């Protein structure tokens, strides 16, 4: 896992959503993500024509983050229990999340200074922030110098798609974009509902 942006220096009492809202990346996120091509997923059937909707490139967050066009949070536990479609989508999103949780664990394991409370923060909190930032730089540096193992290539191969969900048909009708920007998660949810209903009827 490679860090592409780090925001260090917010006190521990500030919550994740507020940090994201004020982070440097948040301002440029939309422009940056619009470079990537959108994908299309089937969200339903109307008059024997498959309805497809656009999924813009997005970033996956946990349930603390806002639900918007370019960021898709996972669901809270209460939401999962009430609806099996939500639970199914959450399962898929959560399957990727566990690797994310590991990324900070790897960093903290590699730099033992994070195992105990940092000393230098008592007098000079600014230096503590610099030191943490330097560790993130070194972490990426270490990935670069010893990453000839092709470790991540295994992840590309490990799972073949059993539902054929990857073989999307691009010739199908594409719904015109809705005028109001809608949270991408809602579209994914409709896609999931459509997939599950298809399975039920078969």
């Amino acid at each position, binding site marked *: 896992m*490679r860090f*592409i942006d780090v925001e260090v220096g917010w006190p521990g009492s500030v919550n994740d959503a507020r940090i994201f809202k004020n982070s440097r990346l948040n301002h440029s996120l939309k422009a940056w993500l619009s470079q990537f091509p959108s994908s299309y997923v089937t969200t339903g059937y109307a008059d024997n024509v498959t309805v497809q909707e656009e999924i813009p490139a997005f970033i996956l967050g946990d349930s603390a983050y806002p639900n918007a066009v370019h960021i898709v949070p996972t669901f809270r536990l209460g939401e999962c229990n009430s609806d099996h479609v939500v639970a199914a989508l959450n399962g*898929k999103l959560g399957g990727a999340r566990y690797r994310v949780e590991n990324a*900070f664990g790897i960093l903290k394991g590699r730099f033992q200074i994070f195992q105990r409370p940092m000393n230098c923060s008592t007098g000079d909190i600014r230096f503590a922030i*610099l030191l943490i930032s330097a560790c993130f730089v070194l972490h990426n540096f270490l990935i670069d110098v010893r990453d000839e193992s092709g470790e*991540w290539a295994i992840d590309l191969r490990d799972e073949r798609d059993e539902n054929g969900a990857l073989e999307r048909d691009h010739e199908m009708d594409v719904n015109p974009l809705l005028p109001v920007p809608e949270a991408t998660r809602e579209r994914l949810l409709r896609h999931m509902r459509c997939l599950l209903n298809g399975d039920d009827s078969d």
Partner: protein
Amino acid sequence: MVFLVFHLDKGADLEPYITLQDTRFRPSIPSRVRVLAFLHHVMLGASYLAISPQYGIGSSTVSTCVHQVTSAILQHMWSVYIRLPTVEQGLRSMTAWELQTHIPGIVGAVDGTHIHIKRPSKDGEGYFNRKGFYSLNVQGIFLLVATVL
């Protein structure tokens, strides 16, 4: 760690920025020792007092070395190693995520973590988090694929 020192000197070209001039008064501490003292501090979590006798330098000198190497890393390596990926790298990450989750469109992921610190003497209460200790909150954004070509 020695492996890393070699790469930091050669691969990242950090050496010229942390090498100090020898004077008539005394020779300077070699850049490798400076980097090694820094790495000893962050990678093994040793205190300045513990590092001091290892390299035969005073504990306040260790502190100076750690400060200098930290700022050299941030000045000269930050923009090289922490930057947004190119479109091609992003697309590879998208493919990797899609194969794993069967959901298209995921470029990266965002997450936060708390770095445990001692209570800062100034505005200490602000650093007390919901988990019950003093911390700095760090937000990171990742790609699934590690390599960048």
